[in-house]
Every structure is written in C-alpha cells, then in structure tokens.
C-alpha cells in the first residue's frame, strides 16, 4: 500500500518536472492554473467579489468550449482581505507555489502597487481590470480598465460643457490613498489649464471605510453656494460609498444643483442604496449594464444564469454587471487569444502576442489591446443614475480612444514613452 502511494507520488513528480521543463507555468498535462487575486472580505469586498465570480464564470465558459489550446483552466482563488501587504504575499504564493500562468486581480491602486514588484521580480503576468490613475507601465501588467484620459478627463470636460451644467467650481473628494490623490493631482492641473483657479477647487479625503459623511456634505453645500455652479468629483472607493450616498440622499443635495460624478461607483456599489433621491448623479465608465447591443444582452444573460446556478448571494435575485466585470471578461478572453497565438503559456511570448489583440466587447465595440502600451483602446461613457439603480448613458465618445498612461497634465511626463522600457529587449 505504502509503496503504491510512493510510486504514484513519484509519477506525479515526474510529470510535474516534465511539464515544468516544457513550459514553466503549466502544472499538469491537461490543465493550466490561473490565479484570481481579489479581496473577498474587508472594505473592498463590496466591489471585488463580483470580479472573482465573473472570472470564474468566464473560465467555466472557456473550459466548456474546449479550454485554452486544449488545456482546461484550473482557477486558484485566494483572498487578500483588503490588506495591501497581503496582496503581495498572495501574489508570490500564486506564482511560486501554484505556478499560475496568469493572474487576474486587484482593484485599488495601492494593492496593484503592492504586487507590482512581485510580478516584475518573478516575471508573472497580471491582468488589472479597473480604471486607475495612470503613471505606470509594466511589462508584466496588462491594464484592461481606463487610464485618466479614458475616464476622469472626459467626465470633467462633460460637466464643464453646457449639457453637463457648465460647472465652474470643483470639489475633489476621495479616499485617502494613491489613486484619488494622483487623479486629483491630474484633475487640478487640468482644471488650471482650463482657467479654474485654486480658490475654486476644494480637495477632501477620508480614510478607508469612513462612514460619517455629515460634515463633508455640509462643507460641499457651503462651498457650492458661493456664486458659481459647482460639481463634485468623487473617487471614494469601497463600502464608504454606501454611507456617502445615503447621506447625500438624506440631506437632499440634488443632482440638478450639485452633480456628483463618481469614478469608482457602478451598478454593484449602488445595490444597497435607495437611488430615488440620487437620480441624476453621474458615473463615468467605459461600460454600463444598460448599454443596448446584442453582445451585452448575451453577457448580461450569461451572468444572470451563472449567478442563479451558483446561488451567488444578492446576484441570484438581482444580477448586475458593471465596468470592471466587463474588463475582467475582456482580459481573460484576450489572454486566451494571446496564448493561442503564441502557442505557449510562457509569459514573455504571451506578452508579445497580446499586442494588437481584438475582442468584441459588451460595450458594443470591437476593442483592441494597444500594440505597445499594454492598455486597451476604450470608448468613454457618462451615465446618470436612474431611480432603479441603473444608468442612462447621456454622453459617449464616437468610438474607442487610446489610453495615455502618462498624463500630459503631470509635469515631467512629456519625456516618458508610452511603452514599457524592458519590452523592447524581450521582443
């Protein structure tokens, strides 16, 4: 008995060794492991849990259709618990112990910054599905969310326009970490370039998980009544959004008076909020669940069926899709296409094959991975909250636009090329 176990172990080890010899990231013959690195607990779980679920749905779909190059995907799900150093630990574990071929994960920029050195050191591959502040390009990361010029800048331009209300005064409100701080730095420079003076900009930050927004909303009200049309740009992240929007509604700050445009609030974050008093507040994304096209109808239907089948709490009764979920979905399919083009799971080969991949996305466009800068070309949409928690698209770009990870509004960025430095060497 014992000998048999020993022999079995030996065989497995040999198989693993053989597999590793052929392609470093493949574990066994017919399956390939990929990592899912999203917070399933803590303050960010409100946003990230759905991304884990949509990733699992996509893997299941790919497996049902024959897998990637004939390999079945075996997801490894870990929970970094909204704890930024833990993200780095879990990423290291995924790459070195589980030997995953790619990792799909992270939401906050602070978590991405935390795992970035790990991915670069161990030459892993990360797909990051959320809009962010730019100021970063890594050869090991593909950014399937928006850069500032694909979300923040168009949103502010819209609010400045006649249709957006012609805002002249700005409140920049965010959670206190790298994404809101950098975005607001870019926006401040952008507003300066449009002739807005510092006296007309108010910047406010709250800690993660903050839950008492009384004074902040009182301050906004006061700031808004000083002579010019005011708009609020919110980069509040995580579950703080629920108390923020509850307070906003209860205090009767209406969108027709002071519109609030949010960059991290979508259908999912508004799930538990009474949206009737919030009608007209805005969000800027590259996709909304309410977008009408056949691809999206199918995507939403698939998600609803999956949520029901897996009995996902909340989603099974009221399935919601949102922008980062769409970006996760696109990222996984583009990775699959790149692997099949490269005919290998090798990170360097897949990275090269990723450039120029196209995919017919639920946002209604065939979108493309930029050949050089690891970002997607995406359409920009601005939506207003409806009374049922969905969004009406009130403005959008004519088509996908190219990402500018190095914002021209941050001094010193002119010289930076939108191409990862070490990319050229690996080509």
């Amino acid at each position, binding site marked *: 008995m014992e000998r048999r176990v020993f022999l079995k172990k030996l065989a497995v080890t040999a198989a693993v060794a053989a597999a590793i010899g052929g392609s470093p990231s493949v574990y066994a013959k017919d399956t390939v492991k990929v990592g899912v690195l999203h917070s*399933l*607990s*803590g*303050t960010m*779980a*409100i946003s990230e*849990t759905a991304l884990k679920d949509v990733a699992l749905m996509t893997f299941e779909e790919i497996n049902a259709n024959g897998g990637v190059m004939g390999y079945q995907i075996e997801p490894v799900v870990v*929970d970094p618990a909204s704890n930024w150093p833990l993200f780095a630990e879990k990423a290291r574990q995924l790459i070195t112990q589980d030997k995953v071929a790619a990792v799909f994960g992270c939401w906050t920029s602070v978590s991405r910054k935390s795992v970035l050195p790990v991915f670069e050191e161990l030459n892993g591959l990360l797909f990051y599905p959320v809009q962010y502040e730019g100021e970063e390009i890594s050869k090991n990361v593909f950014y399937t969310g928006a850069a500032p010029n694909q979300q923040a800048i168009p949103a502010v331009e819209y609010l400045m326009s*006649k*249709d*957006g*209300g012609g805002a002249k005064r700005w409140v920049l409100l965010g959670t*206190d970490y790298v994404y809101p701080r950098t975005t607001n730095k870019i926006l401040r420079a952008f507003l300066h370039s449009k*002739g807005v003076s510092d006296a007309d900009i108010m910047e*406010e*930050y*709250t*800690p993660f*998980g*903050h*839950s*008492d927004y*009384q*004074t*902040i909303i*009182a*301050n906004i*009200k*006061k700031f*808004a*009544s*000083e*002579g*010019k049309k005011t708009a609020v740009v919110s980069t509040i992240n995580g*579950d703080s959004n*629920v*108390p923020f929007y*509850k*307070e906003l*509604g*209860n*205090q*009767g700050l209406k*969108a*027709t*008076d002071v*519109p609030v445009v949010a960059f991290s609030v979508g259908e999912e974050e508004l799930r*538990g909020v*009474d949206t009737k*008093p919030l*009608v*007209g507040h805005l969000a800027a994304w590259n996709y909304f669940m309410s977008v009408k096209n056949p691809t999206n109808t199918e995507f939403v239907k698939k998600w609803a069926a999956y949520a029901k089948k897996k009995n996902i*709490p*909340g989603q099974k009764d009221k399935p919601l899709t949102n922008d980062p979920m769409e970006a996760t979905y696109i990222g996984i399919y583009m990775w699959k296409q790149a692997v099949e083009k490269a005919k290998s799971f090798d990170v360097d080969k897949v990275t090269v094959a990723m450039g120029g991949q196209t995919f017919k996305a639920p946002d209604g466009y065939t979108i493309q991975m930029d050949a050089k800068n690891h970002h997607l070309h995406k359409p920009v949409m601005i939506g*207003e909250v409806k*009374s049922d928690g969905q969004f*009406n*698209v*009130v*403005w959008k770009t004519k088509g996908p636009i190219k990402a500018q990870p190095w914002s021209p509004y941050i001094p010193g960025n002119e010289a930076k090329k939108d191409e990862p430095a070490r990319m050229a060497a690996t080509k």
Partner: protein
Amino acid sequence: MKKALCALVFALGLGAASIASAALDAALVGKLAFGDNDEKIAAIRAFVAQGEAAAAPLLTALAEGQLQTAGERVLIVGDDGAIDAVSGEKVTPLPETRDDVIANNRVRGEVANAVAALRLLAPQREVRLKAVKELETGASVALLPLVKRAREKETDAEIRSALEQIAATIEVKSDDKATRLEAIRALAASDSPGTRSLLGSILLMQQGGRYVEPDEEVRRAAEESLKAVQGRLAWGERAGLLFAGVSLGSILLLAALGLAITYGLMGVINMAHGELIMIGAYATYVVQNLVRAYAPGAFDAYLLAAIPAAFITSGLVGMALERSVIRYLYGRPLETLLATWGISLMLIQAVRTLFGAQNVQVENPSWMSGGIQLLANVVLPWNRIMIIGFAALVVIAVGLLLTRTRLGLFVRGVTQNRAMASCVGVPTARVDTWAFGLGSGVAGLAGCALSQVGNVGPDLGQAYIVDSFMVVVFGGVGQLAGTVVAALGLGFINKLLESWSGAVIAKIAVLVFIVLFIQKRPQGLFALKGRAVEA
C-alpha cells in the same frame, strides 16, 4: 413615481376641461421627444409660456424616464399601460420596439422648474407652497410673467412673499438698473443658499482683476444684501455642525454604553465587545429578511421586531461567553484581554462562514429616508434623528435598571465589594452573568442602530472597539454619566475638527488629545474617589 402621480392628479384637478378639449401641440411634443437637449429645453419653455397646465404630466414623465418613442409616436409608459402623449388616448397593445427618451440633469432641472411654475396657479395651498420651494433657486427668465401673474392672484402671505423673492431672483438679471437694485435689496430678506450663490455671482471678479458687474452701485447693494443673507446662513451652518456632533456622539454613546457596563462596572476588558455589536447588526439583518419573506406588508415596521431580537441575541451570546470563559478569568485582566480577543476573531470568522464575507444589506424603512428641513441650508436626516432619540432612551433605560431595580442593586453591590455582597446572600456568580448579558445586549442594540447608518459586515465591530474604549476611559471608568458626557464631547470635537481640517487629520487629532488627556488625568473626566467608597 409618487411625484408623477401627484402631478397627474393635480393636472386632472386643475385642467380637467383643457385636457378633454385641447390636445397638446404635436410639434412641441415631437421636439421634446426627438430633439436634442437645446430643442427639448426650448419646447419645455414654450409649454410654460403657453401656460399649458396639461403639459405637466408629460414633462414629469420625461423627467422620470417614462417617455418612450415608437416610430413617430410619443408614448407615456406607466405601470398601468401607455397613453399617447399628444392625444392622451390609451395605447393598446403596446408597440414592440420602443426607445427611451433620455433626459439629462440639464433637461430635468428645466422640467422641475417648469412643472413647479405651472403649479403656481393651483387651487391647493400645499401644491403651491411646494412649487414655490422648488423655484426658490434657478428660476429662468422665461418664468417671470407666470410668477408675476401668480403673485397678483396669491392670497396667502407666506407664498406671496416667496413669490416676491422668486421674482427678485429673476429680476436681478434684468437690463433695467432700477429694477435690479430693487431686486437685490429684496433678496436681503432671503435665507436660502441659492440666493447667496446668486448675489455672490454679481461680485465675482473676472480674470485680469475686473469685476463681472461694471456698475459699482449694483455691486455695493449686492454686498450689503449678501452680508445679511450670510449672517442668517451662518446660523444654519452652526446648527448643522452641532447636530452632526450630537449625531456622532449618540453613535459613540450607543457603541460604548455596553462596554461601560462590562468594562466600567465589572472590570472585564472585553475585546469581543465590537463583535457583540456586530452580532446585533446581523440579528437586525436576519429579522429584516424574515419580515420581508413572511410579512412584506409590514416591512416598514421590521425595526420594532429587530430591536428586541438584537438585544436578546447579543445578550445570550454574551452570557454564554461569561459562563464558559470569562468567569474563570476574573481578576486576571491580561488573560481576559487575550482570551476575549481570541473570541472576537472566532466570532468574526463564524459570521463570515454563516453569512459570507461580503457586507449584507440592511435597508432603512421608508420612514427613515430623507429628512426635515430645519433651516434653508440645514436638513436633519431622519435616520440620525431616530438614532439620537434611541440612544437617549437606551441610556435612560440602563440608568433606571441600574439604580431602580433589584438586579441593578445587586450589580452595584457586587462591583463594590464582592465578598461582602456574597456574605449577605447575593448570588454573585449569577449576578455577574446577568450583568454581562445586559452589557452585551446593549451592544446588540448599538448594532441594530448602526445598521441604519453604516455598512454591516463581519468587520463592523473592529471599527468601533477602539472608539468604545476611548469613550469609556475618557469618561471615567465605572461611571455611566461620564460615558454620556465623553461620547457627546468626543463626537462634537471630532466634527468640529473635521470641518476645519478634514476627516483624516481629525481622527489623528482626537487620538492625540485623548493620549494627552489620560496623561494628565488618568482617572478620566468623572472619577470615583475610590472604588469602594461610592454609595
């Protein structure tokens, strides 16, 4: 929806004759549905200029997203079928392919004003009053004739003066200097933030140091009026700040009150206190779901059932804790601290396993949404008012329980001198269990209240444990009155600092303040002269 219905009912009452006889101008309706935003707004203004009260339901439908187009036709699609927007006839069957007419904020703002203006001539006083409130800010020039007509007809003094204010906000933009000056002076009587904004805009400087408003006399008049308005608004801001402080204070008080019993009176350093709060919040969640599933009609009253449920659940968990772990550790604070901390981690994990790691949704009953308008710039949200009242009730109840009942007498007796109490026949062990259960139950009540303002998740308690200890220590261990004063004081200081320096700095500053205070006065605000001396 309610608004739309209200508009409909009103329009029927007001213009029953006109609805029956005259259909709406088809060209204008077409513009409203198919035009771009500029054309939509032009059409809305045209309806107002015609004084077409029958257009109110159509406009409200546009703002509420109930307007749809099917080919050339424009439909108002409600819950009970669709009607043709032009003729008002019922449309059956509903055409298969329909497109939504999307109204953005700009259009919706215009609609709100237009509908309000059309209601200015309504026969009911409340309808007119609401319309006037709506128009207080941002009435456009197009509304002036209508506002003037309404002012002449108005008999109610309050509405009349409001109408005069509205006329003034429009006339400020007039070309005639005398009219403008008069309007600006009239605005000095206002107390709305919108007026401040309007007057402020007259005083703005353009780039290059020139004023937007070239006439100095107008500017001076605006400055004077602005000062008067600002003085009035400043009171509102102070009141708002005070309320925010009391509100935060009441939340801190609820969170700390249970601890004031278990730690303050019994001396147990209970690190699992936050988790007892969390259990109370989850009990509320469970009751909410049960009510929704079995008695959806009574959903608005679910809190009434949730309050005792939260108290009993947390109380039982607390008593079980005391019986099984804490009683063996009395008099050993360090071990108690470690053991209860371990228990807190276990409780968090247990809840995670039972309910999932994600936050759960506890919805406010509908009567807790919204708020009351205290002053023009101060709205007091209902949920916060309720929590302040609830905190006061809980404090009174706990106070009475401790001073007026036999159990309270025993608890105080055991705290002061365990051996002597035991000698005179007090069952000290049982009293300990009951007291700990009481403290835990009060923590559960806090959880029930917190579920109405914040998020409910397994980590809920972690956010409050530090604050709770802070309040109890600051107030003075062993004193309920100290806890009350400390909670309200800390809440107020926190809000005051927050409005100056932002939330992040405020939090740090409060902690630094407490550290310094404890250095100076380790016994807290209200100190006992000595544990055994208190009567």
